[in-house]
C-alpha cells in the first residue's frame, strides 16, 4: 500500500529547531517589512468602491480600448483586467469621493458606457460606511476566534499548550498575509474567510500533535522534553502529511476548476494549508520548550537531551 511516510521515522526535528525558528522569524520579519513597504492590496470590501464583471458578447474583449473608455470617465484609478477565455473582464473602481450615493453614480456611468456590447455578470458596490464596518468586523473575527480557541485549549490542556497553539496560529496568519502581500493579491472578505478557515485548520493540526505530546508525557514520565516531542511528532507525521494532502487536493481541485469567483479564497487556503502543516511540525511543538513545559525547562536539560537525541539520530 501507498506509504508516503515510512514507519518509525526518527527525524530529529528538535535538533533543527534553532534553524526552523530562525527561518520562521526571518519570514515573519520579511512579512512585517513587506507590509510596511508594499501594504495590503485591499479589495473593495475593505476600501469601498465598485467591482463590475462583464462578458464581451461575441469573442475576446478589447482591453486597451476598454481601459481608454473607462479611464475617460475620470473615476480615479480604474483597473481593467481580463480573465477566463478572454471575453471576461473585471473592472474595479476605487471609492468615489462624495459618500455612499456617489458609488452608485459611478456604477451607472460605467454601465451606460459599456452599453449593449457587454453582458453585466456581476456588480458589487461597497460604500464607505459599510467598508469601515467590514474592516472592523474582520479584525474582531480574527481576534475573537483566537481568544475562544485559547480558552477552549486552556480547559483541555495545560496553559503552555494553549499559548503555544495560539502563537503558532498567529504565526500562520501572519505568514499567509505575507504571501498575500508579497504577491499583492487582492485581500477581500473571501480572503478573510480563508484566513479564518486556516485558523481552524492550523489549530486542528497543532492540536493533534499536542494531543500526542500530552499522551507521551503521561506515558514516559522521565523522558526529556525534546526527545519526547520528537517522538510525538514522528508518530503523528504520517497523519499530518496525509490530512494535509487530502485537504490540499480538495482545495486544489477548487482552485483549478472552481471558477474565478473563489480563486482568491482557494489560493489563500492552499498557502495556508502548506504553512499550517509546516508550523504544526516544526513550530508548535518547540514552542512548548520555550514556554518551559516540564523537564526541558532548564537550559542544561535541553542541552543534555539534545545531545541524546542527536546520538539517537546518528545511524
Amino acid at each position, binding site marked *: *500500500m*501507498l*506509504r508516503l511516510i515510512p514507519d*518509525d521515522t526518527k527525524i530529529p526535528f528538535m535538533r533543527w529547531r534553532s534553524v526552523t525558528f530562525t527561518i520562521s522569524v526571518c519570514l515573519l520579519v520579511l512579512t512585517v517589512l513587506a507590509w510596511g513597504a508594499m501594504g495590503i492590496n485591499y479589495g473593495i470590501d475593505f476600501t469601498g468602491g465598485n467591482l463590475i*464583471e462583464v462578458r464581451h458578447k461575441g469573442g475576446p474583449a478589447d482591453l486597451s480600448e476598454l481601459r481608454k473608455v473607462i479611464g475617460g470617465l475620470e473615476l480615479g484609478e480604474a483597473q481593467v483586467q481580463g480573465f477566463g477565455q478572454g471575453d471576461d473582464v473585471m473592472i474595479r473602481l476605487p471609492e468615489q469621493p462624495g459618500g*455612499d*450615493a456617489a*458609488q*452608485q453614480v459611478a456604477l451607472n456611468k460605467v*454601465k451606460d458606457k459599456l452599453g449593449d456590447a457587454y*453582458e*453585466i*455578470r*456581476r*456588480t*458589487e*458596490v*461597497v*460604500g464607505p*460606511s*459599510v467598508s469601515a*464596518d467590514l474592516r472592523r*468586523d474582520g479584525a*474582531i*473575527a480574527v481576534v*475573537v*476566534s483566537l481568544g*475562544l*480557541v485559547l480558552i477552549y*485549549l486552556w480547559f483541555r490542556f495545560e496553559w503552555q499548550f494553549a499559548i503555544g497553539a495560539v502563537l503558532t496560529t498567529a504565526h500562520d496568519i501572519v505568514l499567509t498575509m505575507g504571501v498575500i502581500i508579497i504577491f499583492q493579491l487582492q485581500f477581500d472578505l*473571501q480572503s*478573510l*474567510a480563508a484566513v*479564518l*478557515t486556516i485558523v*481552524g*485548520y492550523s*489549530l*486542528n493540526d497543532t*492540536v*493533534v500533535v499536542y*494531543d500526542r505530546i500530552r*499522551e507521551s508525557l503521561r506515558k514516559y514520565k522521565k523522558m526529556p522534553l525534546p526527545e519526547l516531542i520528537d517522538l510525538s511528532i514522528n508518530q503523528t507525521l504520517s497523519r499530518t502529511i*496525509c*490530512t494535509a494532502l*487530502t*485537504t490540499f*487536493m*480538495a*482545495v486544489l*481541485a*477548487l482552485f*483549478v476548476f*472552481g*471558477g474565478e*469567483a*473563489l480563486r482568491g*479564497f*482557494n489560493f489563500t*487556503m492552499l498557502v495556508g494549508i502548506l504553512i499550517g502543516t509546516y508550523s504544526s511540525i516544526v513550530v508548535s511543538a518547540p514552542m512548548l520548550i520555550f514556554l518551559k513545559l516540564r523537564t526541558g525547562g532548564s537550559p542544561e536539560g535541553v542541552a543534555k537531551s539534545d545531545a541524546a537525541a542527536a546520538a539517537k539520530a546518528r545511524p
Partner: protein
Amino acid sequence: MLYFSRWKIIAIVAVCLAGILFTLPNFFSRETLAGLPSWVPARQMTLGLDLQGGAHVVLEVDTPALVKDRVEILRDDVRRVLREDRIGYTGLGSQQTSVQVRITDQNQIEKATTKLNGLIQNLADTTFGGKPVNDLTVEAPEPGLFRLTLTQAGLDHRVRRAVEQSIEVIRRRVDQLGTTEPSIARQGANRILVQVPGLQDTDRLKAILQQTARLTFHMVEDRGPSVLEGAKSSDTEVLYTNDPTPVPVLIQRRAMLTGEELVDAQATFSQQSSEAVVSFRFNTSGAQKFATISQQNVGRPFAIVLDRTVISDPVIREPILGGSGQISGNFTVQSANDLALLLRAGALPATLTIVEERTVGPGLGADSIAAGKLATVIGGVAVIVFMVASYGLLGIFANVAMIINVFFTFAILSSLGATLSLPGIAGIALSIGMAVDANVLIYERVREEQRLGRSAISAIDTGFTRAIGTITDSNLTTLIAAAVLFFLGTGPIRGFAVTLAIGNITSFFTAVTVTRLMVALWVRHYRPARVPL
C-alpha cells in the same frame, strides 16, 4: 468498541438512509416533487444569490436627513402653537438638533412655557409603568428665551421606527415585483438588507427601493420664472416641474391631501391623449376633502407633488366628487407602472441610501454551479483514490463514510431550508478533505498499535478509542472558527461557515460511528488475524 447491538446497527443504518432520503429532493424538479405524496421529504436547498443570480442590496436610513426633518417639523410646530395663542415671538431659528425662539412680551412667557412644554411627546410605552422617554427637552437659558432640543433617545426611537416602517413599505413594493422569495431584514441599527433572487433588472429594483414616493397635493399660487423674484413667505415654497426644462412653481407649503389617503393606484392610458397615466382613488375621508377643495377652487391650478417635484399642475375645471383622479406627467408605460406600484405600497418614512450592492447575473450563477460541481467531484475522486491507495479496504470504508457525510450535509441544508452559496460549495469540498482526516487519525493509530504487537481486534479497538479524544479536540477547534465566521460574517461567507460546520459535526458521526460499524461487521464476518494497513 467493536460490539454493536442489533438495534444500534438498525438505528445507524436508518440515520444514514434518512440522510440520503432528505438529499434526494434536490435531484428532482419542483414539479415532480409537487406530485409526490405529502409524507415524502420534498424540501430542497435554497441556492444563494451568487448561484442563482439576484440582487443583494443594503440600504441605510439617512439619519442626518431624518434629524434635519425633525428639526424642521419642530420649528413649524413652535411657530404654529405660538401663533395659535397670539404669543409674540422673534428670532425663531434652528441649529443642529435644537430650535430657539425669543418671546417678545414678558407677560406671555408663562403661557408660552405651557404651550411649548405641551409639544413634548412621550415615546415609550408607559401603560405598565416604566420611565417615559421624551422626544425633546424645553429649556429657558434666560428669561424669554426658549431652547427646544431633540433628545438622543427620541432620535434613536425615530430611526428605529423609520427602519421598521421602511421594511414594511419595501416588502409591499418588492412583493409586487412578483419575484420568488425575496428577503427583507433589518441589519444593525439603521440598515435594511434586501435580497431578491433571480432578478434580471437590478436598476429597476434599486429605483423602486430608493424612491421615497411621498405624494402630496398643494394649491398653486403662481408659476413661471417670475415666482423666483417675488417676496418670500413661510407659507409658500418654490418647487420645480419634471419637464425637460424644469419650470418653477410657487405652491402652498401646507398639503391639502397626501398619498396616505389613497386606496388604489393603477397605470392606465388617458382617453384623450392615449398617453400613459396613473389613475388613483382616495379613501372616504380623502374623497370628501378632495371634493370640498375642488368645489371651492374651480378654475385655480393645483399641484401634484412627488418627492418635492411637481409632476403635474392641472387647473381644476369642475368639482371632483367621485374621489378618483388621474396623474399625467410625461410617463412611459414602465414609469407609470412603477409610480402606481409605489403609490399602492406607500411612502418611505425616510430617505434611504444604498450602501452596499452585490448583484449576480443568472449566467454567472449557472457557470459557478457547474464549476463548483466539477471541482467538488474532482476533489472528491482524488481523495477517494488516495484513501484506497493508502488504506486499502479500510480506505474504502472511509470513502463510504465520507460520501454519506456529503449526503448528510446536503440533507441538513435541505431540511433547514438553508442557503447554499458558492463559498458554501467550497465548504463542502473542504469538509470532504477534512472528513477523511478523522479516519486517517484512526487508521494511523490502528497501524501503530498493530506494530506494537497487538492483535487485529485489539489494535482496532485501541485505535478507535485513543483517536476519538484527538478527533474531538481537533474538530471542536475547527468548529469554533466556523462559529466565529458565522456570527461575524455576512451573506455568502455565512454560507461557507454553515456548510463547514455541518460537515464537521456530521463527520464525527460518519467517520467515527459509521466507519466503526463497517469495520466491526467486517471483523465479525472475516475474523482477520491482521488489519491490512
